[in-house]
């Protein structure tokens, strides 16, 4: 009898811990350069972002392969990978951090919760501690996280050749959207 109770307790605890970990393998990261000195749109989307969130601790991680960014313009894609991001040398960007205002989020109640996320962002081989605003949306038991922030190219050692300096803004607007599921 004791063994049965222990087994039930273990299974219940295991299920709770699994639900605490939410993830996606097709999160969306979009970036846009907002300068008006070019007729081309300098923007790209990556829909293969891997994201993991622990709803109990607020720990959140992202991983994206740079070459997974999709452009409409081939030359822009080439310059992005070969000249700016050097994606052969630095194939992946990551973020590892925590939702600082986790107590403001009730994962059991539908709602839109504004949060602050802090952590280590690594781009182009350079790691910086960042604090960005985010939103956790709970709807019908499903969790979605989103964020919009700027990335200063110089902070991550990304330099632009002279001809491109006027066409690409020094700070890139970045938007993150991930619909999560239980692990």
């Amino acid at each position: 009898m004791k063994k049965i109770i222990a087994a039930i307790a273990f299974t219940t605890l295991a299920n709770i811990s699994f639900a605490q970990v939410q993830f996606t393998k097709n999160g969306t990261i979009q970036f846009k350069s907002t300068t008006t000195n070019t007729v081309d749109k300098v923007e790209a989307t990556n829909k293969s972002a891997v994201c993991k969130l622990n709803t109990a601790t607020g720990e959140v991680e992202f991983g994206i392969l740079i070459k997974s960014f999709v452009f409409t313009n081939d030359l822009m894609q080439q310059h992005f990978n070969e000249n700016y991001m050097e994606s052969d040398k630095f194939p992946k960007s990551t973020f590892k951090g925590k939702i600082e205002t986790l107590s403001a989020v009730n994962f059991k109640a539908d709602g839109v919760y504004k949060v602050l996320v802090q952590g280590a962002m690594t781009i182009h081989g350079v790691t910086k501690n960042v604090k960005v605003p985010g939103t956790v949306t709970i709807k019908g038991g499903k969790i979605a996280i989103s964020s919009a922030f700027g990335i200063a190219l110089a902070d991550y050692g990304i330099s632009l050749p002279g001809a491109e300096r006027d066409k690409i803004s020094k700070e890139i607007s970045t938007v993150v959207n991930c619909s999560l599921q239980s692990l």
Partner: protein
Amino acid sequence: MIKKILILLVVGAIAAIFVYKYAMRPVADTSEMKPDVSITFTDINSKMNASDTATLNTYTSKVISVNGNIKSISNEDTTVTIIIGDTATNNSVICQVDSRHIADFKSFLVNQNATIKGVCAGCDGDDMGLGNSLQLKNCVISK
């Protein structure tokens, strides 16, 4: 003299058109390209389980055709992402469908066997305990 100026102007205009077309060319349509590698998800999964991501990373920037079962289909805004895999593993192949060919995938269903061709963006290792993923973009149906 005027004839020379006119010739220069015409040559200059033609050169400008070529430069513009080169600079503004769209990303290549994968449907018009033959795959460099044809592989099954079973083979990819075996390599991932054997920690042979180095071999999978040799496919980066190449056109690869992958056959396997569709684990999930994500339709968001005007984009489609298909994950090839199976329930026995967290390893997967993530396919970003080319926006020019989204209509071709309308009839695709989860658990269906499919062969999808795309440009390999690399193999993302299992840093988060979510399995390895081979990532493809500009994906089309492989015929």
